[in-house]
């Protein structure tokens, strides 16, 4: 059963008793004035009733950010961002939510239909008042109980700061230090919320933390901060995003995700992101600049990143693994599509510090239209990473002759017993292949979909099952109109 249907049925079962709270519209809109300065940072911290240590933390990050320069080295071009021309806390709604689906852009609805998203979910995504009114707190309660039984904490970062401050203090900023890069510093100063997951020793999280996330992610924050901690022997699988195209008022998204895996722990983090890519001329799309890093602190720990990126005007993200613990494993599986005028500069960094650490990188880039797709990867083997192993496979598929596919791998090996293997290939959808499929009865669109999915197969099979199916459909839709 698709995750979406399960979600709604659960919601409905919970709502059978009826609700006290109506659906919120434009009531409480407290917001900070435009711009970014120390006062705004204080305002945010105060609004969230944060302890002193966290305010200090934010201010340090803010000072660091002021001293930094925006990076311009990625192979992406975009007009300069005015950081003072934005709201950093609760932007007022400029438009009222549509009253029914008939007010929604039919293009968007067509996409929802193709992705197989049921009507109710469509309404939810558009912020339309639903009959089965539910309160996010109530639904949260149901799942929370199930998780609490195991000792698992899954809540917002804000809640975690209040209820588990020692955990937050110990781990936040330990994987991505404030001064790590421009966007991480910005995020550390003004982050408003995000997810916090803590799985105690020896516990296997009994459910994919994705179903739950769907409900909570009605409006994704601009500066999200996520922290996932898996103690010794713990396992957890977390899915971020959804296949439905997400529009947002805010153009810049600069999230920070930190993962910590102790001895024998395993964290699987999957992302299916379909941010609004801008119109066919490339205007108005989302800029997605994210810092994601996982620390394999413990021996035999494992962190696995899987991503399907089909949206956003500009993507700049390098989910990375620091392989510290002996025998730890880092994996990166990625499909990135750029069509029309999209630009993606994405890849990974695998830093091997401990002995017998292993990393696998499989990156599939698909360029169509005038899209520019760059894989940028770093494999660094430190002198103590004896017998470390890396295998990288980087494949590009070009559709049409107006797009570009680029590969920029950095391989740095300081350990003689380590072995690094890197391979990159470029191909296109050959006419022979298309004709073969069509002669067998498949339409051109279906043929392209079939071949592209075949190309991405290795990556798609790493996704949690219910999303693999949606991801396949998503790939096909993203390439509409690109062939011929």
């Amino acid at each position, binding site marked *: 059963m698709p995750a979406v249907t399960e979600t709604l049925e659960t919601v409905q079962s919970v709502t059978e008793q009826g609700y006290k709270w109506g659906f919120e519209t434009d009531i409480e809109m407290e917001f900070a004035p435009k711009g970014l300065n120390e006062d705004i940072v204080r305002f945010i911290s105060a609004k969230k009733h944060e302890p002193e240590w966290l305010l200090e933390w934010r201010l340090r990050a803010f000072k660091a950010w002021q001293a930094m320069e925006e990076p311009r080295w990625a192979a992406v071009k975009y007009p300069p961002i005015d950081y003072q021309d934005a709201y950093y806390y609760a932007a007022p709604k400029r438009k009222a939510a549509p009253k029914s689906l008939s007010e929604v852009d039919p293009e968007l609805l067509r996409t929802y239909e193709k992705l197989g998203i049921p009507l109710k979910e469509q309404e939810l995504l558009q912020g339309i008042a639903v009959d089965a009114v539910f309160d996010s707190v109530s639904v949260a309660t149901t799942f929370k109980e199930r998780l609490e039984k195991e000792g698992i904490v899954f809540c917002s970062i804000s809640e975690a700061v209040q209820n588990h401050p020692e955990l937050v203090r110990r781990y936040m900023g330990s994987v991505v230090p404030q001064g790590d890069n421009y966007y991480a510093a910005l995020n550390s100063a003004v982050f408003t919320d995000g997810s916090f997951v803590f799985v105690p020793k020896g516990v296997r999280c009994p459910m994919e933390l994705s179903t739950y996330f769907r409900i909570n992610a009605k409006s994704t924050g601009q500066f999200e901060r996520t922290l996932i901690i898996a103690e010794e022997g713990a396992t957890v699988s977390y899915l971020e995003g959804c296949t439905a195209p997400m529009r947002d008022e805010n153009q810049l998204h600069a999230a920070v995700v930190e993962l910590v895996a102790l001895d024998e722990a395993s964290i699987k983090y999957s992302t299916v992101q379909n941010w609004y890519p801008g119109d066919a001329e490339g205007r108005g799309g989302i800029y997605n600049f994210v810092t994601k890093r996982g620390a394999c602190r413990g021996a035999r720990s494992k962190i696995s990143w899987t991503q399907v990126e089909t949206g956003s005007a500009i993507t700049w993200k390098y989910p990375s693994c620091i392989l510290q613990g002996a025998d730890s494993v880092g994996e990166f599986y990625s499909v990135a599509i750029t069509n029309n005028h999209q630009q993606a500069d994405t890849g990974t960094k695998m830093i091997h510090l401990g002995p017998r650490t292993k990393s696998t990188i499989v990156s599939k880039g698909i360029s169509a239209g005038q899209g520019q797709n760059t894989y940028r990867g770093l494999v660094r083997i430190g002198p103590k990473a004896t017998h470390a192993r890396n295998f990288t496979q980087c494949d590009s598929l070009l559709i049409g002759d107006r797009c570009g596919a680029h590969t920029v791998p950095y391989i740095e090996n300081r350990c003689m017993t380590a072995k690094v293997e890197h391979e990159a290939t470029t191909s296109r959808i050959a006419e022979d292949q298309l004709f073969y*499929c069509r002669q067998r009865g498949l339409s051109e669109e279906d043929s392209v979909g079939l071949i592209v999915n075949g190309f*991405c197969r290795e990556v798609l099979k790493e996704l949690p099952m219910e999303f693999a199916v949606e991801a396949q459909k998503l790939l096909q839709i993203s390439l509409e109109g690109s062939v011929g």
Partner: protein
Amino acid sequence: MLKIEGLTAEVEGKPILNGVDLEVPQGEVHAIMGPNGSGKSTLSYVLAGREGYEVTGGAVTFRGQDLLAMEPEERAAAGVFLAFQYPVELPGVGNATFMRTALNAIRKSRGESELDAMQFLKLARQELKSLSMPEDMLKRGVNVGFSGGEKKRNEILQMALLRPALAILDETDSGLDIDALKIVADGVNALRSPESSTLVITHYQRLLNYIVPDRVHVLVQGRIVRSGGPELAKELEAQGYGAIQAAA
């Protein structure tokens, strides 16, 4: 079933087919033989609707419909099947997935119900058995790492599943040893029926010992210059194409 009248076609501006006339009645097997460069493969690509092969004149009627006006997948849905001479590879696309998708696309266009994975597998297993092909062929990528013989057999397997009304076999025997040839021929023969027709395109007579045609046509410089019964093939084998080419 198939009626070709005065068909002329060009490839990259060069005329290859120069007025082909051919009629293949329902239920019959016709062979097209000819020297290299005579236009055999071009004819099969034109019938299947491949881009780059430009029809400059003439008409092709398939089961009463104007074949040349149809897209490749529409021709497939109408019942045309081309067994390629050099089947292409589709990395990452599972053989079973591919065939089921194609079968269902064709069934859908005919208003028939689609098969689910289990139903398809059952059907596929049957065909594999009768073709003496191993079941693991279904799990492999389409033609990926297949030997020449395996690729040809994969084409016949698809033919068995899609049950076309008109099967065009483009030099199916090239690159096959006798044993593989027999398996392929057995497969083709098993699919012969009064409702379907087959067009066998070949350079050598050998295949026609196993797939015995009702009529044999000789294609030289883009035109059919002679037609006859199965004995014409043997005559060609004995004498070569020289005499016929000279006369053309």
